[in-house]
């Protein structure tokens, strides 16, 4: 993807994720749907996620105000539109969803008092709502209690094609798997037949076909429950946002600051601080210096590349460096089906896989993240640390080129002009020269690049990243490696299409048993890797500095930045 800031803008709000940490982690016993009153952070064991430094346990009654800095402004306070990281940090404070994430990618009951019951055909999910959950207004007073009608209205609102100023470019597609959603999307019905309030505290969601992604989709920010009065004007609602979350918005000064205060009677685990500030318009260097001296608590943008080494090696700052391996993978995409292209030969693609020195690529990103050896990254259910079909092996690569009858050829590698992407592309260029492939690098601004690579067979090679929409393995297969996505404007930039894999992926979507399902995805991953449409290159790691008065962890694998769980000494 693009340079750090651009990447932030574009990348997913990292919603979602579970389908059973129990299955993926295998060892971690999670998701104890538990009695009512259980709270997200209490209910489930954590998976192997964020590696926050060990810090003192937060004080029981934390009273400080935590601050985070961002370069970009908050685009939306309305969860129906929020999908960038800064808006995500804000909406995480204001809203809750039916099901939510624990400290890792495990799903636990949120506004539902327990995980839903699922009908035998796998299509109908029934949620019992918590009673006594209040909506808070911007002045901190209670609007009223949440009911099933609000949930129904909120989910229909995501699908509403008349939402002002515009519907989200990404949100509605996720919810289109609900029965009757298509009719709302095309404007022929006001509400979806598959979203029903059974009684004031029971909601039923019926899918068009069995699809295990639904819980992750409901846990996205788009699945936030807002009052049914929210209406079609998202700008107006965003100006006075009302949610069930642990905070209300006290004040927002565009371009400057958004201030949040804790709601006294929040239904769930109380936040570990009395309030939060999102400070806008601070560039990354300013954030870094302010965090080091304590004028700011948390960084929202990356440590600038030029200051990265000095910062992480600074002994004064040890214990104040927070890290998270992002649920994302960077890769070199190879056009597998261009006519008369050497890349259409699987042996050539395998040779390229063996020829790329990933250890060197990791060095170029300051040792962050580590090498990517397969499709699913760590923290993604289905991640398989043993999956490494193409270790660095120049001799093997040369042999494969010979087997393919290739003496060498010229090709083009497209990426964005950020320093990191450029140096990655150059390193790959050097690696591939060793097996006779002459690579010409073409740099395009990120948005232009998106257009180029979505045009069939325009870019033989692309260096780019994929960030999760939610932590379900389907999110790394269907949108980027299916036949349906290998179309003009689609995100399958390898133009790789195998109907047999598509059939397996469709079966996996509907598979009710989590363990079986994960095994199916691991099998899909192996088969795709055998065909080598990609060279997975590196993992992405977020590294930040926090102020000395902070304890707890805020780099969440799904919520991106979670200010609920940060305590500050006063």
């Amino acid at each position, binding site marked *: 993807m693009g340079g750090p800031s651009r990447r932030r803008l574009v990348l997913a709000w990292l919603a979602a994720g579970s389908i059973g940490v129990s299955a993926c982690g295998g060892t971690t016993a999670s998701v104890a749907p538990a009695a009512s009153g259980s709270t997200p952070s209490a209910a489930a064991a954590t998976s192997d996620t964020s590696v926050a430094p060990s810090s003192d346990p937060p004080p029981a009654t934390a009273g400080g105000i935590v601050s985070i800095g961002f370069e970009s402004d908050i685009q939306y306070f309305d969860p129906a539109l929020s999908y960038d990281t800064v808006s995500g940090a804000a909406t995480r404070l204001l809203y809750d969803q039916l099901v939510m994430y624990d400290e890792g990618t495990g799903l636990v009951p949120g506004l539902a008092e327990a995980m839903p019951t699922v009908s035998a055909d796998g299509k109908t999910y029934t949620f019992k709502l918590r009673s006594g959950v209040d909506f808070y207004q911007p002045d901190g007073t209670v609007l009223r209690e949440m009911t099933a009608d609000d949930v129904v209205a909120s989910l229909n609102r995501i699908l509403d094609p008349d939402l002002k*100023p515009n519907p989200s470019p990404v949100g509605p597609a996720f919810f289109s798997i609900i029965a009757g959603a298509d009719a709302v999307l095309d404007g022929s019905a006001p509400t979806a037949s598959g979203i029903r309030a059974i009684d004031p505290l029971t909601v039923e969601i019926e899918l068009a076909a069995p699809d295990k992604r639904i819980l992750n989709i409901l846990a996205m920010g788009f699945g936030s429950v807002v009052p049914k009065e929210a209406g079609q004007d998202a700008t107006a609602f965003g100006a006075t946002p009302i949610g069930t979350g642990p905070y209300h918005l006290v004040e927002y000064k*565009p371009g400057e600051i958004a201030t949040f205060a804790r709601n006294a009677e929040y239904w769930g685990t109380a936040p570990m601080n009395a309030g939060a500030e999102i400070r806008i318009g601070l560039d990354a260097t300013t954030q870094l210096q302010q965090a080091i001296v304590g*004028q700011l608590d948390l960084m929202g943008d990356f440590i600038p590349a030029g200051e990265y080494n000095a910062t992480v090696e600074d002994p004064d700052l040890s214990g104040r460096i927070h890290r998270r391996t992002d649920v994302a993978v960077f890769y070199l995409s190879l056009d597998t089906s261009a006519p008369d292209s050497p890349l259409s030969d699987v042996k050539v693609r395998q040779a390229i896989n063996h020829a790329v020195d990933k250890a060197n690529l990791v060095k170029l990103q300051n040792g962050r993240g580590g090498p990517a050896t397969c499709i699913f990254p760590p923290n993604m259910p289905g991640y398989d640390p043993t999956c490494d079909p193409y270790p660095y092996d120049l001799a093997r690569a040369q042999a494969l080129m010979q087997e393919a009858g290739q003496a060498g050829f010229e090709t083009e590698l497209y990426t964005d002009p950020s320093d990191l992407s450029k140096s990655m592309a150059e390193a790959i260029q050097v690696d591939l020269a060793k097996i006779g492939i002459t690579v010409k690098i073409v740099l395009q601004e990120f948005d*232009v690049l998106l257009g180029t690579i979505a045009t069939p067979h325009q870019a033989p090679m692309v260096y780019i990243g994929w*960030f999760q929409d939610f932590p379900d393995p389907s999110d790394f297969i269907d949108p980027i490696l299916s036949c349906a996505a290998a179309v003009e404007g689609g995100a399958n930039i390898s133009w790789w299409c195998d109907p047999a894999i598509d059939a397996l992926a469709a079966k996996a979507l509907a598979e009710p048993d989590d363990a079986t399902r994960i095994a199916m995805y691991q099998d899909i991953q192996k088969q795709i890797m055998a065909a080598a449409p990609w060279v997975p290159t590196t993992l992405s790691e977020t590294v930040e500095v926090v102020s000395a008065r902070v304890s707890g962890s805020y780099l969440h694998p799904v919520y991106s930045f979670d200010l609920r769980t940060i305590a500050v000494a006063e």
Partner: protein
Amino acid sequence: MITYLVRRVLWGVTVLLAVGLFTFVLAYIAPTDPAKAIAGRNASAEAVENIRVALGLDQPLLEQMARYLWGVLHLDLGTSYQLNRPVVDILLDRVPATAQLVVAGVLIALAIGVPLGMRSATRPGGPTDRAAIVGTSILVAAPAFLVGSVLLYLFAYQPARYLGIELFPIGGYEPMDLRYLFLPALTLGVGLAAYYARLTRTALLDELHQDYARTAKAKGASDGRVAWRHAFRNALAPVLTQVGLDLGVLLGGVVIVEAVFSWRGIGKLAIDAVTQEDLPLLLGTVLFATMCIVVINLIVDILVAALDPRVTLGGSAS
């Protein structure tokens, strides 16, 4: 005088429209795709197309341009892609910050530059003069981002980190707060001060060689009195004119200073607009800067006429 004003205002509007058109065309032909930038990679092709239509980007250039200019004439600069607010509102929000910075910067520049220039001029070749020439050469050449970063590092970050003294905040903006204002204004000011010092020196030396100055001196007035009471006022006119003419350069400096200090003004807004490919916002900041230059030049012309009776407005001497 009235005719002159009318002519100048009409000319100003023409300049605005021309700059607007030019920027619009530049933005249009630049290889960017705002719809893709907004939607991101995880969006479907259909969603991107919907955004393109919603923004009117699917329409032909001339139509988009006509619609934009029609809006400009009604003081409607469109809606920011990224911030979803009217560009005019966003600009107005940011005006106070930039105005404070510019005023403070110019005041610092004048306060340092003019006396320094005068001292140099009254004792040309003296130690002050020579030191000033060397010093100002360096400061004129030093880029604002360097001066700003160094000041920030030495006077804000280092004391806070190693001495535990918060001398100045590390960037940011608070309305009418001198602690926030000082370093950015100084950064902007010293570069300009060097420039004004040289300007004042030259202008004053010119005046001191005029007959009236010599006469005053012959009548027994001290050097200082000749310089301050007689020549200064006359020397000020070219300095002021130059201040007006240099406003473009000054605004350029403001962009850099605002970026270095995370100062939430128009300059930072312009940079954000560029990096986020927010075309309406970018056009808005450009038009706003143009308007400032047009208006300030007009004000300076009027001021200079008031200061120096030899200057008349409107061309024909009355």
